[in-house]
């Protein structure tokens, strides 16, 4: 069996996962892993599935589109990325947070610095509550910093970016948050 990745996007309402997983079952697929999120009124999900040997991504896409017709969902079937199982360098988990008034370019600038240093973003969340409490407008980047990366250089570049954008920025090892908030 080969693996495929299916992305599903649409207006959120009850029944989407039921419909998609039923369609996958009838297509002979096994769901290996799934990640689903709600962003404002939008449903988004990624399914990693094992496809039966006698179909390919295009065929699966046609089958799913047919089965989910009328549900107003965008469904795309992708080949599973080839290099995804490559060995990784050991990395330490950090949390980069920015606080400050919302403006265009924050995510691009911060993630640009991270990319230049070879730092991978493993989770990104935004808190936009408005008002004048700085913490009410925050971006939380959970990142993996590979051991060879210079933490000092990364922090310096992030600090410069933050200053240009008028933001407060913190970089802290993830262990602090885990150890303070979990038993």
């Amino acid at each position, binding site marked *: 069996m080969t693996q495929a990745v299916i992305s599903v996007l649409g207006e959120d309402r009850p029944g989407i996962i039921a419909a998609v997983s039923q369609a996958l079952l009838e297509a002979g697929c096994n769901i290996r892993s799934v990640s689903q999120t709600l962003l404002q009124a939008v449903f988004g999900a990624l399914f990693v599935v094992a496809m039966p040997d006698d179909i390919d991504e295009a065929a699966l896409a046609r089958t799913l589109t047919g089965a989910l017709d009328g549900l107003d969902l965008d469904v795309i079937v992708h080949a599973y990325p080839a290099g995804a199982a490559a060995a990784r360098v050991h990395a330490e988990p950090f949390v980069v947070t920015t606080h400050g008034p919302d403006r265009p370019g924050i995510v691009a600038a911060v993630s640009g610095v991270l990319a230049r240093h070879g730092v991978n973003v493993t989770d990104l969340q935004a808190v936009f509550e408005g008002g004048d409490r700085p913490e009410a407008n925050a971006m*939380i980047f959970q990142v993996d910093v590979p051991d060879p990366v210079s*933490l000092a250089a990364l922090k310096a570049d992030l600090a410069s970016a933050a200053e240009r954008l008028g933001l407060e920025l*913190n970089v802290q090892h993830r262990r602090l*948050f885990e150890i303070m908030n979990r038993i």
Partner: protein
Amino acid sequence: MLGKQEVISTLEMLKYEHLDLRTVTLGISLLDCASDDVRVFTARARQRIETLAAALVTTCDRLGATYGVPVVNKRIAVSPIALVGAPFTAAEMVEVARALDTAAGNVGVDFVGGFSALVEKGMAAGDRALIDAVPEALATTARVCASINVATTRAGINMDAVLRMGETVKATAEHTASDDGLGAAKLVVFANIPEDIPFMAGAYLGVGEGDAVINVGVSGPGVVKRAIERAIEAEPGIDLGRLSEVIKQTAFKVTRAGELIGREVAQTLGVTFGVVDLSLAPTPTRGDSVGEIFRSLGLASIGAPGSTAVLAMLNDAVKKGGAFASSYVGGLSGAFIPVSEDLEIAAAAARGDLSIEKLEAMTSVCSVGLDMIALPGDTSAEALAALIADEMAIGVINRKTTAARLIPVPGKRAGEHAHFGGLLGEATIMALPHGSGGNAFVRFGGRVPAPIQSLVN
């Protein structure tokens, strides 16, 4: 993955609620540096301290930056000098203090504790020499802190030592008259002194400890206060059981942060990790106050009726949260009520809302004692001794640690202002009834016998 709330609430504690590591204290044994030649001893002691503590400050700063939790103070605590320097004269003890001061300065720490003696049952030669040396030692050094244990629940109260300490407190203040008696702010008299306090001025390395150890003092009165305020706002009809729970959970988080960094400092330096002291230790900064917690729990001021009950609840909830957070909790571990070091407590004393009598009552349920209390300059040595005796009695009978850090401010009267500076803060001088006369009770001397421990009423 971390949830949004976990990240945001932790950051708010660090940025707005003054969560920090109040101190990382490296305990260093000097027992094997012993010599009857003071020059040999001081050379060995300096070498020991300057080697072991060489990387203390940089390690704390680096780990503090990694986690985003500032390590505010880095300190050193050594073996009790009265024991290690038992053969020395008082003048030689002063030399030892100067050597400790120099070593501490060279490694960049702001205080070194351990100029200490344990005299709950009697005074030996080294103890007498050290106590005799205290006024000059504390006047001529910047960083040295002294602690003298004069009572334990097992041994009772050594009233000869208590009287001697009343005299010593007064002399120490007089030796530093130009600084409002600042020397006495570095001297604490204890009952049931713990061996692993990371805070000053009581820190010393207990004789049951190893070669070197890291003890951590976390703090977070501001964090506790904000947690209480948020809970009251979010839960109408909230009761004291629920508020205790809020305090407990907050203490858990604060303790966890301290242990994380403390363990890594210990590991980096290659020494054992000792304990977290989870005391709520205030600084003279708005929002970093234990006194403000009393207001958030509904009292008009610390010192008003209800203060002892509030403190009892607070102290206990802090201990419970901390004890769940870490297996190694020690030192004082409770709430501090140092008058000059807490803006709100100092203000309450200045307004007359908080008296010495109420403070003394509160020491029966908190973890420190009569702490950083400025008294009139004409307070007699005997009155100081008698006040110390009161505090020792509270500790001895109730099987807890109590202490007295009293500062008779030379030349000033009740209601006037004393300024100690930095973390030691400033305070209005408090009135003490019968403070300037003699006290025949303390002149009896001897030992108050150890209390019976079975009939506990």
